[in-house]
């Protein structure tokens, strides 16, 4: 195998966003050798796009907050389908993880008495998001990046894509990757692998995600035989940009609403008052006057006594409401809702609290958000579903495989609260790094790599070069994106989903015939043919899981079953590979412990 650049590690971390870097830092601190392999340059991961903040019950801005309230909000936001132990760990450990970032150099915005300032966000009862203007993700990535490069035992392999995980007797033994710049193969022998690859947003045309979000980790885990759970739950963020076409889908932070921004339809109505679900009725203002009192309190830095504006309902609710307003003919000129902060806050406050939003709209859409409303519509944003993991160690159902962050399933249930993904990265990135390091140290014998298998994989990866003159991979990816947006989007029916499955099979056949131009050096066409295989796998998984869940819950809406069904509230839909077939089954969720139940019911 001299044709390969070969390297050997104890722990291989795949992905260099918040979860991957936090995992690598933790594993290295345990004294094992670590590599981080990432598709882009270090520091460019999608975490930089996180705007609003990191949710942690620090209780610096409102002393009434605690991990118990955070736990309850997370479970209710997830429509009780969350892995309750993960939700508990998230709520309990997030404050320490945020303070740790500060000790590593991060600079969060401050309260008047010099502590970490927290911001309101959808579904969080109290101001809970530690933030830096609207560029919190960048602050996190830079802090973790600087910590990573100073760690002596972490190699960073930039611009390299892992194409397959390798196993020996069902446990992880390595990974085969290629370097994007040269196209050369990289054989990574490892005892443990941590997936931290993020989500699947590029399966949809209108999305807020970067090119990297092709479900690589989901597909790698699936191919290695791991269970995936909750794949039917794709989060459509309520506020993506609508116009001009070239920026369609780019995210407008929930922070706009957290800072007092309101949603209106073409008649000027604040329509969200009509969409408050029964479960949340007591917690939200039912008049504009009360909602305005809440905003006034928040701006003045007082503890809000009024109930919250309905614009701060969870993302699934707000996204469905906007889609319905547009469908019923009350949309904005370009088919969205109006998001208005201009009439609510002073221009200088808007520029200070939402600087990136201000710049983004001014430069890309010719809209000055201090003077005019924005136009917004839901955009594919986040994958709640993912690799089934043990809540304590983040280990998958395949020995030696771990997953953290967006690629892991369970924590967010049927809908993720804004701000919980950044705390997820920190809390479970650390746990995955620790879990992987402990596993690697406890391994008796070094796992062996199957040489003929590696040869076979490289032949598969190079096959598109043999098909010079075949269809463009971009055309097939676009067809898939249109299919998923149209038939596996916000509102789903059995007919649409069945049709989508048949079409995915046809697209798979087309994907098998695509060809690429040029050579192996930095060739995006070739890379797209390989990413496309992952997108097809996750698209099939989302569609099959969506068919299996015959109810509406959180981000998953089935038109024929508009209500939640208590039976389905007790199960996860699990997807697993069996030979070449994708199997789907329901798996009961373990009953919640008594003390957590009491917290959930508000008895504590």
């Amino acid at each position, binding site marked *: 195998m001299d044709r390969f650049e070969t390297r050997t590690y104890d722990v291989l971390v795949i992905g260099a966003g918040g979860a991957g870097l936090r995992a690598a830092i933790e594993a290295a601190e345990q004294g094992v050798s670590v590599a981080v392999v990432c598709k882009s340059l270090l520091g460019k991961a999608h975490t930089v*796009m996180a705007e609003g903040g990191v949710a942690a019950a620090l209780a610096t801005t409102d002393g009434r907050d605690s991990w118990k309230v955070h736990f309850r909000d997370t479970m209710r936001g997830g429509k009780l389908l969350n892995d309750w132990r993960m939700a508990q760990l998230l709520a309990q450990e997030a404050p320490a993880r945020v303070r740790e970032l500060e000790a590593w150099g991060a600079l969060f915005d401050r309260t008047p008495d010099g502590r970490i300032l927290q911001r309101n966000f959808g579904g969080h009862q109290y101001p809970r998001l530690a933030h830096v203007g609207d*560029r919190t993700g960048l602050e996190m990535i830079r802090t973790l990046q600087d910590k990573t490069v100073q760690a002596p035992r972490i190699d960073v392999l930039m611009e390299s894509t892992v194409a397959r995980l390798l196993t020996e007797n069902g446990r992880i033994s390595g990974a085969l990757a290629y370097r994007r*710049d040269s196209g050369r193969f990289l054989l990574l022998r490892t005892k443990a692998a941590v997936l931290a690859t993020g989500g699947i947003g590029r399966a949809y045309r209108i999305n807020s995600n970067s090119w990297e979000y092709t479900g690589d980790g989901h597909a790698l885990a699936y191919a290695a035989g791991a269970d995936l759970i909750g794949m039917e739950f794709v989060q459509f963020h309520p506020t993506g940009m609508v116009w001009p076409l070239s920026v369609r889908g780019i995210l407008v932070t929930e922070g706009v609403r957290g800072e007092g921004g309101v949603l209106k339809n073409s008649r000027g109505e604040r329509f969200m008052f009509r969409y408050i679900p029964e479960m949340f009725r007591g917690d939200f203002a039912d008049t504009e006057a009360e909602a305005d009192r809440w905003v006034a309190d928040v701006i003045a830095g007082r503890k809000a006594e009024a109930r919250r504006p309905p614009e701060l309902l969870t993302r699934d609710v707000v996204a469905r409401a906007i889609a319905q307003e547009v469908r019923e003919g009350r949309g904005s000129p370009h088919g969205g809702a109006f998001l208005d902060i201009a009439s609510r806050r002073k221009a200088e406050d808007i520029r200070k609290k939402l600087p*990136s939003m201000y710049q983004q709209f001014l430069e890309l859409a010719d809209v000055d958000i201090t003077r005019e409303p924005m136009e917004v519509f839901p955009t594919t944003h986040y994958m709640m579903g993912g690799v089934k993991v043990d809540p304590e160690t983040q280990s998958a159902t395949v020995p030696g495989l771990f997953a953290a962050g967006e690629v892991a399933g369970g924590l967010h249930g049927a809908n993720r609260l804004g701000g919980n993904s950044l705390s997820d990265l920190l809390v479970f990135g650390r746990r995955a790094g620790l879990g992987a390091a402990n596993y690697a140290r406890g391994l008796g014998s070094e796992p062996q790599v199957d040489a003929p298998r590696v040869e076979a994989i490289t032949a598969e990866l190079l096959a598109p070069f043999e098909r010079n003159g075949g269809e463009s991979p971009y055309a097939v990816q676009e067809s898939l994106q249109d299919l998923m947006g149209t038939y596996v989007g916000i509102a789903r029916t059995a007919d649409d989903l069945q049709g989508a499955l048949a079409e995915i099979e046809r697209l798979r056949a087309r994907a098998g015939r695509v060809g690429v131009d040029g050579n192996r050096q930095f060739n995006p*066409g070739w890379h797209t043919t390989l990413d496309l295989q992952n997108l097809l796998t996750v698209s099939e998984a989302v569609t099959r899981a969506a068919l299996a869940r015959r109810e509406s819950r959180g981000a998953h809406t089935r038109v024929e079953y508009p209500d939640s069904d208590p039976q389905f509230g007790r199960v996860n839909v699990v997807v697993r590979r069996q030979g070449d077939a994708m199997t789907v089954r329901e798996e009961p969720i373990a009953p919640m412990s008594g003390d957590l139940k009491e917290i959930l019911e508000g008895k504590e």
Partner: protein
Amino acid sequence: MSGSNGAQSTETVLKIFRGDGTTGAFKDYTVPLQPGMVVLDAVHWVQAHQASDLACRWNCKAGRCGSCSAEVNGKPRLMCMTRMDHFPPGEAITLAPMKAFPVLKDLVCDVSWNYGVNRRIPAFRPRAPEPDGTWRMQQEDIDRVQEFRKCIECFLCQDVCHVLRDHDRKDRFAGPRFLVRIAGLEMHPLDAASRTAHLKEEAGIGFCNITKCCTEVCPESIHITDNAIIPLKERVVDDFYDPLRRLWRRLRGTA
């Protein structure tokens, strides 16, 4: 878009550098125009329809990640934040990779040197926390450091800096990006380390003669020269050229 009267052009020509570190030439691609289109959209259109192997970097397409840096009509810019209607209609637009770094392929450069510079900067070292284990900081004390931490590492400032671009002094000079990073550490209210020796010797701050080219191209509008580099130069002068301090260092044996 408003602005130009008369016939709207429906397409435009991109002249894109195709090649690697040794050979290459500009090649013409005709691209259809859409309202609000940015240069990166045009590059993606070329990839999808005319040259699937055209290499460029990008991630967020919203000016946050700093991946899609290139020279558009000779000016260092983020392709995702450069509108096509910024240029006169009907005139070809030239796209070239950043000049200050070796070309890997097409619009992609080898920027690995920057990562090596970053690794050598002395790390953040916080002072001891308060008894409750946390730190108190006033917003006005962190405002200026938060400005430096807005940096998205697009390396456009490195590309335009004549010390790196024209004189290729990568052996002696860290460049504006890393002077900004060092400023963010030096002026951090919690940091207890000193980096003036590093600034003087390894980062080569003396090479900067404050022409402000870096400030002009910064997509985050960081006042690189005024707020970062000049105050750092003052610190170096205070520490190394102040006669009393020089004597003090000699007495302590740390000269």
